[in-house]
C-alpha cells in the first residue's frame, strides 16, 4: 500500500514523542487499543490555566498510519482548550492524512485517545468524566 506524503512525513519525523509525568494532576493520560489488535496509543496532555492544553506527547505501537494519526493529534491539541479538543473528529484526521478506508480505525483510535486523556484529566481534577459517544467504528 502506498502511504500519503503526510503520513510518511509524520512517520519519519514524528512530532511530540515522549512521556509526561502521569502522576501530575495537570496531566491527563489516555492509553487505548490493545497489543493483540496491533495498535496501542498513549496520548498525554498537560493542561494549564484556562483549561488550555500547553503540551501534548504520544507514543504509539502500530502501523505507520497509527503513528501518524497520533503525531498529528498532538500537534492539533497544543493551544486548544480541552473543550475545543473534544471537538476533534476522527474524520478530520482521515482527511488531513488522506487515510485509506482500511486505516480509518487508526484515526478512530486517535480520537479515542484524545477523549480518554481529557477524561483522565477531568477525573483527576474532580470533574465528571464525559460520556463518550461511540465513534465511527
Amino acid at each position, binding site marked *: 500500500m502506498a502511504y500519503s506524503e503526510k503520513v510518511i512525513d509524520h*512517520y519519519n519525523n514524528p512530532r511530540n514523542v515522549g512521556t509526561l509525568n502521569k502522576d501530575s494532576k495537570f496531566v491527563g493520560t489516555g492509553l487505548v487499543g490493545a*497489543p493483540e489488535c496491533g495498535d496501542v496509543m498513549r496520548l498525554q496532555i498537560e493542561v494549564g490555566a484556562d483549561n488550555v492544553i500547553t503540551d501534548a506527547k504520544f507514543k504509539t505501537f502500530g502501523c505507520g498510519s497509527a503513528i501518524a494519526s497520533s503525531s498529528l493529534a498532538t500537534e492539533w491539541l497544543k493551544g486548544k482548550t480541552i473543550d475545543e479538543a473534544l471537538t476533534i473528529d476522527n474524520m478530520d484526521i482521515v482527511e488531513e492524512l488522506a487515510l485509506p478506508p482500511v486505516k480509518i480505525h487508526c484515526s478512530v483510535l486517535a480520537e479515542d485517545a484524545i477523549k480518554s486523556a481529557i477524561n483522565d484529566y477531568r477525573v483527576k481534577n474532580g470533574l465528571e468524566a464525559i460520556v463518550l459517544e461511540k465513534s465511527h467504528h
Partner: protein
Amino acid sequence: MKQPIYLDNNATTPLDPRVLEAMLPYFTEKFGNAASRNHAFGWVAEEGVDYAREQVAKLIGCTEKEIIFTSGATEADNLGIKGVFEMYKEKGNHIITAVTEHKAVLDTCKHLEKNGARVTYLGVKEDGLIDLAELEAAMTEETILVSIMYGNNEIGVIQPVKEIAAIAHKFGALFMTDATQAVGKIPVDVIADGIDLMAFTAHKMYGPKGVGALYVRRKNPRVKVTSQMDGGGHERGMRSGTLNVPGIVGLGKACELCRLEMESEAIRLSGLRDKLESTLSKMEESYVNGNTQHRLPHVANISFKYVEGEGLMMAMSDLAVSSGSACTSASLEPSYVLKSLGLSDDLAHSSIRYGLGRFTTEEEIDQAIAVTEKAVNHLRELSPLWEMFKEGIDLSKIEWAEH
C-alpha cells in the same frame, strides 16, 4: 528511485536470465501449438514440452508421464485435492490436512466440505511441525487423502514427509504434498519420500509466473484424478487447455538449474540466513519463529517484540520483506500460521519474514541487518509497550480496551 533489497523470495523469485533465454524462442519462431500433430510447428513445440517434462521429472525423481502441467501451484493443489476426492468417492470422504497449509489447500478443502467431504485440520506443535501420533489417530477407513505441505511458506519448517506418507499408506490413503517452497531448494524425491501427488510452481524457483505442475504417481499405486478443466483432453485427460509452451520450457530450465546448483546454493543460503538470524536474534526481546533444525535453507522468521510489523516494514523501506502483521492484509487478523504455533497476537503482529534467494549477496544481508536494527530501535523509542516493558510493567495484567 533506489531499488530496495529483495528479501521476499518466498513470495516470488526473479526470473533467472538463463531461464528467460531458454524461453524466448518459444514466443517467436517456435510459437506452435504442442497439440498440433500434423506439422513442424507443432512438433517443435511438442519437443520443447517433452524436454521440459524430462527436466522436471529428473529434479523430483519421477517419470515424464507423471507430470501434469498446470497454471501454477494453486491450480495443482485444486486439481490434486478435488480430483482425488471425486475419483475416490466410493472409497471414502475423509481428508486430513493441517492448519498451517497455504490457502490454496485450506480453501479447497473448505470447498469440498460443502460437497460432502469430512476434513480434519491437524494443529501443529509450537515448532510448526505436525504431531505424527495425532495424524495416526485421525486416520480412519474413510480417509482417502492426507495433504500436508513439504516446507512452510511463512516459517520454512519442513514436515516429516516420509513418516507422514508411511502413516497415510498404512491406512490405504494417498499422500499429497504442496511442495511449492521446497522443490528446487532442497532434495525432493517422490519415490524415497513416498509421495503420491505433489504440487509445485516455477516462479518460486527462478522460473516464470503462470506455470506449475502436479506430480501424479503412475505405479504403486496408480493414482488417478478427475479432471477439473474439461476440453481437448491435454495432459492425459487430466488437465485440458492449450499448453503454455514458453512457460513450460521455462519451468523445465528452472528445474534443471536448481538440480545442478541446489547443493552449493543451499549451503550458501543457509550460511547467509544464519548470519542474519543469529545477529538479529541477539537483539533484546527478539524471537525466531518455527523449528530451526528441520527447515528450508533460505527463510528466517523473526518477531521483534513491542514493535508492530507493518510500522516496522515502513521504517525498513530499503528492504522488501513481508510481515505476519494484520495490517498487510485487509483482514486485520495476524498470520494464522504464526498463531497456530501458539504465538500471542502481539508477537504475530511483530514478525518479519526474510526470504533469501539465488541473487541475494552477503553485502545485502549485512545491510539488511543494519537496516533492521536501526528500524527496531527507532520504533521501540516510539512504542509505549517498550517503555512499559522497560519499567517492568507486566503487559498481560493490563486491561486493554478491545476495539
